């Protein structure tokens, strides 16, 4: 493995890429050895994904050179990269949901019968062999939309193997997986490595990186900081290199003072028409006090987002049970009613459900409270600008000014704008759905501090997160959901990752692994 004389499999030589005026990569040079597991770490925006898109032929227009097995290559499209043995599994999977697993594996290279018609049987047999090889039970004729997200990922891996891939790029593959699915993925990765596949693994989860990798390359601001042997470093050093500064350990929650109950939920259920489970949420009861942060934990599909949607009037079906806000029963049918009653929600998936990408920072901040800056429906530009400037200053949004395009901001600052948008409605209850997703480490810390401050002003806050350490840092109490049911409540002193995971997987009929 440490054969320094052999020439590297992939050699990046001074690769650079700009998007307009933004430098995404500059002078990136490092190499990948045959058969190694090479982790690439960096904060969001460090250039990891851009670099991998160049290597896999998604981005074709860049400077510098990539040398593969000693010969310079310039892929014009992903097909070229695939032919050279390089496949990528993107963070957002690249499957056609309406087609079967087998059809997806052979998409674009379908097997045909002598008559030239599709030979589904042969493709399904080949797919079954691949799944066998990966030691997983997926029906080749199952539609991808019916598969769990972890299984869908395995379909992508099977596709890569079918392409005779010897370099597999994985872009944050575990971000949507349950614990068991992660374990299975690692077993598959182990299998691939024994077959000699070189793996480039993008992640910022230290435990995964340190568990699997041979070498680690850290990127920061589009530049290579350093490539290290795993044995010669530790998670703390990598984190330090990623951020460029020490991450302070957090101790929030001091000085908080939970007061009277602001939100009371009793026997809340959300029907799920046409689904075997029948309920997205079933008989959930809890209360939220002013000045506390309540966390909601659970695996993907446990009903975290759905619970917040019920409270915000944006649920997909009529909600059953009672919700009381300051003792008065409320029944929201539209987010506008929730907004008027003092409930605010920062949605997950900022880009799809939160941002107005064509608008400026100012317009994004004031969209919920525009009537406050207007007289008889006509907006006063001056009042609106001062409202936006005020919010920018209060939340410390880093922007060139209120008129900057929202898309010119980093993920963390965009998120601050959306929180600012809702704070302007002067809510009593703030719902935050996975607020730090796609936000880099430094900005996360700022958001934590902000949430803590808001809590101390007497706001009742509910936070969901896919990252358990985040909930442990932030919350006074955590509710754990499993398949739509409340399986436990943990106070601050009982909060550990292990305890939460136990409750989150507390299914009535769990088959033994």
């Amino acid at each position, binding site marked *: 493995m440490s054969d320094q004389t052999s020439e590297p499999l992939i050699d990046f030589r001074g690769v650079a890429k700009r998007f307009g005026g933004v430098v995404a990569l500059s002078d990136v040079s490092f190499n990948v050895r045959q058969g190694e597991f090479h982790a690439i770490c960096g904060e969001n925006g460090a250039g990891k994904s851009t670099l991998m898109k160049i290597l896999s032929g998604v981005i074709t227009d860049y400077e510098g050179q990539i040398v593969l097995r000693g010969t310079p290559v310039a892929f014009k499209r992903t097909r070229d990269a695939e032919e050279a043995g390089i496949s990528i599994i993107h963070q957002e999977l690249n499957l056609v949901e309406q087609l079967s697993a087998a059809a997806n594996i052979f998409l674009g290279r379908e097997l045909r019968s002598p008559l030239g018609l599709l030979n589904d049987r042969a493709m399904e047999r080949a797919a079954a062999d691949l799944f066998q090889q990966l030691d997983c039970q997926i029906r080749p004729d199952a539609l991808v939309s019916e598969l769990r997200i972890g299984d869908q990922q395995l379909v992508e891996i099977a596709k890569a193997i079918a392409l005779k891939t010897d370099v597999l790029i994985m872009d944050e593959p575990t971000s949507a997986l349950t614990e068991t699915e992660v374990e299975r993925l690692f077993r598959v990765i182990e299998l691939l490595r024994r077959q000699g596949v070189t793996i480039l693994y993008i992640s910022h989860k230290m435990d995964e990186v340190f568990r699997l990798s041979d070498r680690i390359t850290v990127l920061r601001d589009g530049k290579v900081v350093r490539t290290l042997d795993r044995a010669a470093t530790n998670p703390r050093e990598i984190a330090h290199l990623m951020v460029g500064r020490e991450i302070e350990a957090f101790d929030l929650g001091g000085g908080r003072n939970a007061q009277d109950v602001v939100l009371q939920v009793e026997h809340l259920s959300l029907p799920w028409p046409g689904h075997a489970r029948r309920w997205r949420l079933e008989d959930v009861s809890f209360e939220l006090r002013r000045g506390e942060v309540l966390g909601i934990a659970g695996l993907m599909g446990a009903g975290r987002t759905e619970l917040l949607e019920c409270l915000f009037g*944006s649920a997909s079906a009529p909600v059953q049970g009672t919700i009381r806000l300051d003792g008065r029963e409320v029944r929201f049918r539209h987010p506008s009613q929730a907004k008027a009653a003092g409930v605010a*929600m920062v949605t997950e998936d900022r880009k*799809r*459900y*939160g*941002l*107005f990408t*064509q608008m400026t920072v100012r317009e994004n901040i004031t969209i919920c409270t*525009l009537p406050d800056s207007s007289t008889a429906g006509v907006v006063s530009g001056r009042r609106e600008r001062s409202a936006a400037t005020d919010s920018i200053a209060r939340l410390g949004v880093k922007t060139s000014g209120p008129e900057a395009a929202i898309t010119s901001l980093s993920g963390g600052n965009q998120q601050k704008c959306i929180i600012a948008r809702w704070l302007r409605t002067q809510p009593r209850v703030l719902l935050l759905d996975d607020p730090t997703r796609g936000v880099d480490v430094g900005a996360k810390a700022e958001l934590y501090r902000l949430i803590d401050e808001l809590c101390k002003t007497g706001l009742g806050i509910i936070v969901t997160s896919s990252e358990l350490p985040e909930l442990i840092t932030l919350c006074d109490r955590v509710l754990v959901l499993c398949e739509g049911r409340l399986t436990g409540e943990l106070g601050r002193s009982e909060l550990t990752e292990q305890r939460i995971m136990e409750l989150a997987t507390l299914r009535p009929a769990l088959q033994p692994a």
Partner: protein
Amino acid sequence: MSSADASLNLAGGGFLRRYRNEIGLLIATFAVIIVTSFFNESYVERPGENVQKILRVTALLGIFAFGAATVIIAGGIDLSAGAVIAFSGMLFAGIIVLLAPQNDRKLPVTSDLDAWIIVTAIAGTLLAALLIGSFHAWLITIVRLPPFVATLASLVGLRSLAKVVVQNITSVSHGQGKSTITLDNEALLSVGQRGGWWIPVVIWFALAVALWILLSRTVIGRHLYAMGGNEQAARLSGIQTEKLKWLAYCISTTTAAIAGILYTCYIGTADPSRDGMGYELNAIAASVVGGCSLAGGVGTVTGVMLGALFLRVVIDSVEKSFASRPDLFEGQVVGALVILAVAFNELRSTSGWRRPFFPGVLGWLNVGILSGLAGLITGVTSSEDKLRNGLIAGGCVLVLLMFKAVLERIAERK
């Protein structure tokens, strides 16, 4: 300090960048006028008359283009404008002949109408337009049809309905069913003609000011842009998207109805089988040329006005250049301009100019198609030697495009 610098920068380069589309359209419009005046003396000899004519036709198109643009900005599409124009023109004329005094042969006399009749006809037509818009909004927000389908149904259904209703109205007013209604009223006919040519133009400008205030100065306008840009996010920001859609589709049908009334006055006859045929596409074309994005959330009132102006100027220029049957070319002009405008916007935003245009078999095929089109259009527009001119033009284009295609292939191989 850095933020002050940045805002200064925005103020300096902001004007050009912000109005890039509008400035481009203005320059293009003038360029077309100047080029046309080389071929045709009309612009130089009778500027006043030409300005009047272009302004009038632009205003008539511009009025319902505002409606189309509002819906597009709000993230929808309205295909019903042409049918609404036909229906409203018919209804306006129908109400007049039903209310007009009758002569001794029991036929309506429209030459001298009381003001209340005209006011009733206008009010009735606008009310009908609001009902049509509300119906669209109901289909789209409650029944949840895609806007394309809901308004496509109106496009065919409403014109057909108008053709039946006109028979019934005329059988009451004239004693026998007819397929058109003719108004013989000097005051109405003068709208858009000679002494009254300015009336549609003034209405257009008034609507422009009103729509500009609505879109850029009010809460509702901001919410329309927000909904068009990201409907989910708008709803989750507590914006009542159903009401906004109702407003947008009503603005669309109302402006089409205003245009329908003006057309009927100008022509003097309401003919629901022909009025406004295909105009919905002209309106969408004006919006798109004027910088609206069909994806929603983008577009300005001035852009749409200049888009309509540019479209009409180019059509007028083609009419001036080809004396025989100029009306035949309108469709080709609109089609070509829409492709060019959208392609131009698309290519400007991406680094598109450098990418190959004629790759693969489809590329070769389209080298042939474009050359054939060039030859065909040159041939049919030539007054003599049609075959020779067509072959020459087609051949030249073929050589040029093949040259480009070959260059692209060489660049690709490198």
